């Protein structure tokens, strides 16, 4: 996307390719075009490290013929290449097998008022490079003023402006624009052989909502230095408090398990559990793609199905899977506007906040762990099993006594959902998957 200039021809291109596909024998055609501009600046130890600025476009398409599907995509938007891709996709579709569940969604009568979603901040395209560089520089400078910080991974500021155009042969033709900005910093503390590290970042669609350099720097410093001189602990079962970033991580795993795609593929432990109790009454989870100005907000999904608010878990009862059109047809459900193509992606997927301030949750802990970071893989959606490397803060008698590292936490998502004892009031929508502080009755923490 050219800065400040919006080409209109892409919409015509999308429409003409839909027609081209139909005229060449496709039963159904879907075209999506992404036109984007990005700027990013990395500053480290006071100097600019990288500056990237670019505009780029890409196009994705799906054709269906006799219930057989083929996909294609290209960053080359020349007419010759695109028409070749469409024709070839129709040929390839013939080699796939018919699938009664395939096909585009019917045209929805629901109309989303795109401006009300507040996806575009006109201030972001106007930010000049000097201001952007200054934001990253300032953030790092403030962080490095703290003498406990010994090195820096650098601070970054980035912006993106994208325009999405979507057309299909059922008569859908829409577009929207969206902005994004993000400020982040990674820090190290301690000497080389006893180093600890952490980062903090703020990401928003609107520049004025972005956390200040000072706020981002201070949070990153605090998160890093609290891990200095960690101890190892003995293997034991203890209550574990999840900080909001960790609850969000857990919700990412829950999202993967309530995905309609995982359900029809039977790769989730929540298969056939709709309407059943899978957690205790403290657990209410929603997915809402329509919250104005939030990171997961979008007017429609990757198939042109309008976004909606879906109740996923209501006081522990599993109410809905999140489906694209295909998964919905497989499961005899309705699409929840969650398509990311052949998969699903969240809108704003969040655990409803409780009433307890996080400090009270900590002070309620006689002995246990505050989980602050995890690393590694170790999530199995088929069983719900969790096993991850972890970093935390050890708590005794309601007080943080020392940091711990080189531990693993293990448990099971199904058990965790049933064992959430407290839910904090600090839900902050920092990411599309978001949750407040929670306290889980018991997890295995493996150490020495």
């Amino acid at each position, binding site marked *: 996307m050219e800065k400040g200039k919006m080409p209109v021809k892409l919409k015509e291109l999308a429409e003409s390719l839909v027609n081209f596909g139909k005229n060449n024998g496709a039963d159904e055609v879907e075209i999506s075009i992404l036109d984007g501009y990005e700027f990013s600046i990395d500053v480290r130890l006071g100097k600019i490290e*990288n500056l990237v*600025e670019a505009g780029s476009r890409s196009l994705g398409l799906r054709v269906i013929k006799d219930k057989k599907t083929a996909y294609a995509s290209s960053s080359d938007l020349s007419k010759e290449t695109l028409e070749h891709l469409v024709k070839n996709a129709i040929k390839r579709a013939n080699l*796939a097998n018919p699938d009664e569940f395939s096909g585009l969604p019917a045209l929805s009568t629901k109309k989303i008022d795109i401006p009300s979603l507040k996806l575009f901040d006109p201030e972001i395209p106007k930010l000049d490079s000097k201001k952007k560089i200054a934001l990253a520089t300032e953030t790092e400078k403030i962080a490095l003023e703290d003498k406990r910080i010994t090195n820096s991974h650098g601070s970054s500021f980035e912006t993106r402006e994208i325009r999405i155009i979507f057309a299909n042969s059922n008569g859908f033709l829409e577009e929207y624009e969206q902005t994004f900005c993000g400020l982040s910093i990674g820090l*190290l503390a301690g000497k080389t052989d006893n*180093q600890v590290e952490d980062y903090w970042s703020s990401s928003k669609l609107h520049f004025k909502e972005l956390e200040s350099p000072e706020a981002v720097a201070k949070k990153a410093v605090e998160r890093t230095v609290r891990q200095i001189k960690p101890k190892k602990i003995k293997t034991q079962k203890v209550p574990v408090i999840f900080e909001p970033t960790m609850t969000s991580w857990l919700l990412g795993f829950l999202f993967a398990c309530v995905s309609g795609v995982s359900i029809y593929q039977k790769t989730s432990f929540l298969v056939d559990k709709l309407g059943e109790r899978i957690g205790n009454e403290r657990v209410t989870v929603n997915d809402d793609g329509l919250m104005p100005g939030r990171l997961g907000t979008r007017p429609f999904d990757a198939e042109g199905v309008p976004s909606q608010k879906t109740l996923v878990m209501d006081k522990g009862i599993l109410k809905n899977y999140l489906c694209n059109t295909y998964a919905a047809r497989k499961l005899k459900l309705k699409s929840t506007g969650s398509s990311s193509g052949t998969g699903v992606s969240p809108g704003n997927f969040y655990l409803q906040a409780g009433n307890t301030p996080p400090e009270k949750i900590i002070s309620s802990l006689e002995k246990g762990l505050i989980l602050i970071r995890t690393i590694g893989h170790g999530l199995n959606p088929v*069983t719900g099993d969790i096993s991850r490397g972890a970093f935390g803060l050890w708590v005794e008698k309601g007080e943080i006594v020392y940091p711990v590292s*080189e531990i693993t936490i293990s448990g099971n998502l199904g058990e965790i959902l049933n064992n959430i004892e407290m839910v904090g009031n600090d839900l902050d929508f920092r990411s599309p998957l978001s949750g407040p502080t929670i306290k889980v009755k018991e997890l295995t923490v493996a150490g020495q």
Partner: protein
Amino acid sequence: MKNPPSLAFEDHFNISLGDFQNILNTALSRGGDFSEIYLEYKIHNFINMEEDIIKETAESISLGLGIRVLSGEKTGYGYTNDLSFEKIKKAAITAASIASSRTLREAPPLSPVQYHHNFYPVQESPHKESLEKKISIVKEAYHSAQNFDRKIKKVRVSFVDHIQFVTILNSEGLKVSDVRPLMKLACLAVAEKGDKREAGFSGGGGRVGMEYFSADLTPKEIGQDAAKEALELLEAALPPAGEMPVVLAPGHSGVLVHEAVGHLLEADFNRKKTSIFWNKMGKKVGSSQVTIYDDPTIPYFRGSYNIDDEGTIPKKTLLIERGKMAGLLQDRLSARLMRRPLTGHGRRQDYSCIPIPRMSNTYIEKGEHSPEEIVKSVKKGFYAHKFLGGQVEDSGKFTFSVSSGYLIEKGKLTAPVKQATLIGTNIDILKNIEMMGSDLKFGLQTGTCGKEGQAAPVVDGCPTIKITRMTVGGQ
């Protein structure tokens, strides 16, 4: 595109060499030290089979270029997939803006570099093969997994192949190209018994031709291996937790070398002094049984390349020699700033990315102990067979997720175990390597490594290894 893609980048970029020369100079117009154009054209194919049908196929074309300017420690980068001269020039001006020096350089005329090696001399190039043939291979793997046992309830097979044409032009007069094939057949099998449900995975590929499926690893074997693993996991228990001796299986455990050691020997982390290794060159960092290489020149391997993404001819690089730190993986920027020779490890995901030091095929050299002897030496411990992956921090702290393993009791492998996590600090583990096996193997040719948001195909390997003590996370 009806004809096989041309090897000459000029055919995909409607711009003369003279114009590119001009662009390289535009990129230096603010006083940069070095400018470079990376041109990429890639055709990617995908087939997916699940629920007994070929569900979909996909084809994707990626065409674009990235322009980089280096000025001291600074990098300016612009990229575009609109290949008009004006847009390319604009990307060059963007990249140029990083510099502000009065000393202007002029790029010498471009002179093509010919090299005389080819690490992927494939016979039947996958991108020329018909879709029908590829579909038949997918079906073969699928049915082999499905028919292996009645408990196999679900199978998914995917086939991906790509051909990538890259050309690098730079202000030192370099003009060099590479054409890289890549292929992967992967099978996931889910087995069920009562309430239990477990998934097994297998796959193969590399920078190979279609002949691979008859000569090296058949689709049938790939399907069976996935099914076997799923069935075995049905019988597996969760592991005990705590510190214990750990034996790492050959091949699959190479991920440990990759994560725990390889990443921290990438030059950027050492130049920035964030890696635990930055001040340890030549010093002892592990048991004298440990020698580690990264080798981008192994024929047909997924991590190999004829030139890296900065146009450097790659070298087999010694990283750890008998326990002493011996080398780093370099890209141009770090090599120049650290005054070290290039090793040919500057890689990038695609034209939109700045090249950074990356691993290729990383492995621990074999030792003297037979694998039987190693297992026999453990009274009570854990045998890590297959890994899902791992992650490491600059501090050297790492975790590995073990998908399947065994208990070791009285020198024998006993009960199968699933879902364990290994955690530790790399230097501790390197020092605690007690026995090195004589059976060097490489893991599956399916791995992809992520760094700073960039994906790169990699392979890793190791022999059977005994670690005196390691923390195992489990029940």
